[in-house]
């Protein structure tokens, strides 16, 4: 358990999302397959709290399971095991009707504002749909009034209400996506790569908008991104994910200034800095190879195949997320509260 705090809005306990790809049967063996059942462990035993009013950043590379985790929190994908508690009920076991009611509180913003908006619907209908679904306004004109209000909140002119998504730029479309999520006054928003598809000058606008809305409406965010600079900027705490597991969790500042887990260290050192003088001096930790397939991932610590500090035991022991320093958690058997710096451990 990473945090026992009364302020937790969402509590994940050993959450698992597996996808069974089949295989391992007679046909597989005849056709020269491995003979093993192939299971993608997209999320493999994740436990953490998301505190009310905070932004928890979730970073990791493609295929690490971060989007699946985000979707699981809204049950947009089925949960295989563990619990996802929201206000005393387990999202994993809600019935259809209960789940629909909860979705009013739990909303999502997607990466690609081109693909996540129906091109045949006007902006008014896109934003108005959740308002009608949850019966938040009783007349047609009341719905329209509410849509216009939300549009203004996200910085879109109310004159655009009859326009279609293709008439907007990428940044404006992302504002429509945010407006749709906000229309039902949610408490918690999963933002899955909300800025990756946008131009640099527009990314700052969207990050600032999300921050303003959070303060105004007391929102709680799970901000999923591969962009470490953006995550550091918007998040109070940051969780680093690798092949279905959380390997480090701490306040944004601690994770950037003193990352403990070897994977976090490599990830942070890989980000190019827009400063030629820093770039010239700094030593990069270049990881070898690619992220292994999440289908039957490596045994023990999933990172051992690429870790410069791995020892024999790393192949066998599955490391647990442990509080190495106050409020700073990492999952690595090579570090401990007595020896948080892996460089020191490796030297011994």
């Amino acid at each position, binding site marked *: 358990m990473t945090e026992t705090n009364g302020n937790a809005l969402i509590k994940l306990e050993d959450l698992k999302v597996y996808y069974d790809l089949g295989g391992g049967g007679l046909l597989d063996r005849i056709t020269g397959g491995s003979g093993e059942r192939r299971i993608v462990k997209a999320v493999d035993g994740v436990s953490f709290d998301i505190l009310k009013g905070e932004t928890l950043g979730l970073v990791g*590379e*493609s295929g690490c399971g971060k989007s699946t985790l985000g979707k699981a929190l809204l049950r947009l994908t089925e949960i295989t095991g563990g619990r996802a508690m929201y206000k005393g009920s387990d999202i994993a076991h809600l019935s259809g009707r209960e789940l629909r009611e909860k979705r009013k509180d739990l909303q999502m913003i997607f990466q690609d504002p081109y693909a996540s908006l129906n091109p045949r619907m006007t902006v008014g209908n896109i934003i108005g749909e959740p308002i009608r679904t949850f019966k938040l306004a009783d007349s047609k004109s009341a719905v329209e009034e509410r849509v216009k209000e939300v549009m203004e909140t996200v910085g879109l002119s109310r004159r655009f209400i009859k326009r279609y998504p293709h008439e907007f*730029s*990428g*940044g*404006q479309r992302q504002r429509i996506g945010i407006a749709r999520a906000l229309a039902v006054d949610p408490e918690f928003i999963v933002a899955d790569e909300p800025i990756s598809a946008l*131009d*640099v*000058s*527009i*990314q*700052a*606008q969207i*990050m*600032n908008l999300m*921050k*303003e809305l959070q303060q105004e409406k007391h929102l709680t965010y799970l901000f999923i991104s*591969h962009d*470490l*600079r*953006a995550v*550091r*900027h*918007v*998040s*109070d705490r940051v969780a680093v994910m690798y092949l279905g597991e959380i390997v480090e969790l701490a306040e*944004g*500042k601690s994770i*950037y200034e003193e990352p403990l887990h070897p994977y976090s260290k*490599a*990830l942070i*050192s*890989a*980000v*190019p*800095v*827009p*400063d*030629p*003088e*820093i*770039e*010239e001096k700094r030593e*990069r930790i*270049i*990881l070898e190879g*690619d*992220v292994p397939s999440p289908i039957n991932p490596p045994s023990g610590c999933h990172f051992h195949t690429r870790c410069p500090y791995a020892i024999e035991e790393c192949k066998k022991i599955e490391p647990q997320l442990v509080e190495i320093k106050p409020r700073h958690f990492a999952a690595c058997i090579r570090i401990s509260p007595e020896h948080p710096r892996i460089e020191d451990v490796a030297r011994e």
Partner: protein
Amino acid sequence: MSEHNGNLLSVNDLRTYFQTEDGIVKAVDGISFELKRGETLGIVGESGSGKSVANLSVMRLIQEPPGKIVSGDIVFDGIDVRKLPIDDVRKIRGKRMAMIFQDPMTSLNPFLKISTQLMEVTQLHLGHTKQQAYEHAVEMLRKVEIPAPEKRVDGYPHEFSGGMRQRVMIAMALSCEPELLIADEPTTALDVTIQAQILELIKGLKDEFGTSVILITHDLGVVAGMTDKIIVMYAGKIFESAPTRELFAQPANPYTKGLLKSVPDPAHEHGAPLYQIPGLPPDVAHLPPGCPFAERCDRAKDICTKEFPPFVQINEKHHSLCHFAKEVYAASGGE
């Protein structure tokens, strides 16, 4: 060796326009730059700035119609590429100048083995026999650090990961030891740890072969560590050009300054709002009369919306397209 002041490539007043339903789009509108042997130039810009079209023009890869290079000179090692018959361009392209793209999956043929695709280049340009070309292909894969190249060479593109495919593209581009390599967003589709591998590889190969590189990207972090000089493009124009260190230390254009400030800096405390450039990039088909950046610029004056700004020379190697370039330059010196 070239006799053109040591320049391998010089582009002068290049204009590439596209005929669209919306009118004429001046995707690239009067840009000039030079590249010496062994030098790396970064071209930075947002989508629609013209950075990719500029380089497709240099390679004569503009689809005509709707596009057309309407004026300008593109001189590569003394050869005027713009006036060259397309058959002669094909003899240079892939051999003396090569290009790698953002998405290696769409630039490799999914039906052909990697070996076939790599061999084609050297058989065509270097007159290799099948045997020579095959050995060369394996050698190139080894150079770009693909594990077990003698086995992987007979694989198909889908059997490679994104990072490995980009390595294959680099191997193909460098097969004939080109003098110029144009890399258009080579790492944008890749994860950060893989991006670090690819950038390191490009750096190493550049030193080994002495290749001149044009690196096109939207990521200011990528150009900071990789380039000698930088061009910042906006709405088809060069807004600023300067040696890399100077551009970051003392920008002379409000757009460059805005871009630099709007990148979150992990060293800073979070919580404070990020600097944001207001508004949207302009519609290149309908540009306003004055400076295309005026309506988003925080220091725009009357003149900016009326008159097109001059390309002001700050010092020998530093230019900025702005009515107030010198003031902006002086102000960022004190920051």
